[in-house]
């Protein structure tokens, strides 16, 4: 995936799409697609309702829900874009809810989300075009977090590792205004067990994360944030 500003000054995401291969690591029949997005800030939803010359299907080009993991685009009709925006704005974003909202033949919908979740999503009559396009930062952190799950020590957080990783990333992101460059420790109880989430911040962005069971009594220079009790 690449992202750049095109000749018209539009923010452009160029991505690959196709049919998932068996282990969801790539596509068969890969093609390149381009998304035009008005996404400019770290929060909110933007809908670009202009029509792009030469691309009649883009009456509504893109809808993006930020700051976390979902981004969806709806094109072909205002009705579909409005429906998508309503779902996203309601804050009840889930892939099944999107699948339910869009009947099988209604729309060409693309959803950006964790590969692990996309793989398990009901996809009636191929309605949803699964893509590998995800929030680039979250995808990177998700990869880095694979380390934390390597020895099964986090099984108590849930059996869907992809979903657990996204929850951890979302939790860390929710405290982003409190995080400082360097090490940050986010502690609390998840599913009844003391848990530490480390967020390593560089230039204001979370560059790496770790999760482990237990909480150390030792404090370091970085902030320690207590998130209380959560059930995942």
């Amino acid at each position, binding site marked *: 995936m690449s992202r750049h500003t095109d000749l018209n000054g539009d923010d452009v995401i160029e991505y690959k799409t196709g049919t998932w291969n068996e282990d969801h690591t790539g596509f068969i029949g890969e093609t390149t697609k381009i998304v035009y997005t008005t996404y400019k800030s770290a929060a909110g939803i933007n809908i670009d309702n202009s029509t792009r010359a030469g691309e009649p299907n883009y009456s509504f080009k893109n809808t993006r829900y930020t700051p976390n993991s979902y981004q969806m685009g709806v094109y072909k009709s205002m009705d579909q874009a409005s429906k998508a925006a309503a779902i996203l704005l309601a804050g009840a974003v889930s892939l099944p809810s999107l699948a339910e909202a869009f009947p099988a033949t209604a729309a060409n919908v693309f959803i950006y989300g964790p590969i692990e979740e996309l793989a398990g999503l009901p996809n009636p009559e191929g309605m949803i075009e699964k893509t590998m396009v995800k929030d680039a930062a979250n995808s990177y952190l998700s990869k880095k977090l694979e*380390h934390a799950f390597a020895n099964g020590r986090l099984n108590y957080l849930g059996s869907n590792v992809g979903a657990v990783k996204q929850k951890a990333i979302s939790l860390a992101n929710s405290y982003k205004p409190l995080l400082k460059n360097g090490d940050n420790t986010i502690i609390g109880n998840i599913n009844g067990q003391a848990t530490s989430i480390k967020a390593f911040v560089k230039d204001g962005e979370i560059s790496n994360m770790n999760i482990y069971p237990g909480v150390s009594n030792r404090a*370091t220079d970085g902030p320690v944030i207590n998130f209380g009790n959560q059930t995942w």
Partner: protein
Amino acid sequence: MIKSQYILDILSLILDGNDIDSKLKKQIKFISEKNRQHTGAGVFIYFDHDKDIFKCKVNQDIVLNGLKIYSKEYDLEAEVNLFTKDGLLDYLEILAIAGSYPIEDPKKYIVKQIWLNSPNREIVREN
């Protein structure tokens, strides 16, 4: 017995503090590496225990952190967590803060205590 000087240095510094049961540090001589699990980003090192370790068993399981590892050899900055289970040293986790973690133990490195109110000790092996 732990054979890697690198791992011994890490263990000796992370278990060096007034905030832990002194019996825990005494366990070092009764452990050996059972196996390693490299994840790309870091490594988990699991310990076997000699039977004599049980005289140094502690009552509470803890997680210890507060070390940083630096190695110019691998352009590495890493952090360390040590976990106990059933009162015994269970496994060590080393995670590269950026980039990947080397398969081989660094030969040239600095291990440094960074937790607040630590003795501020460090071990430098750069020759």
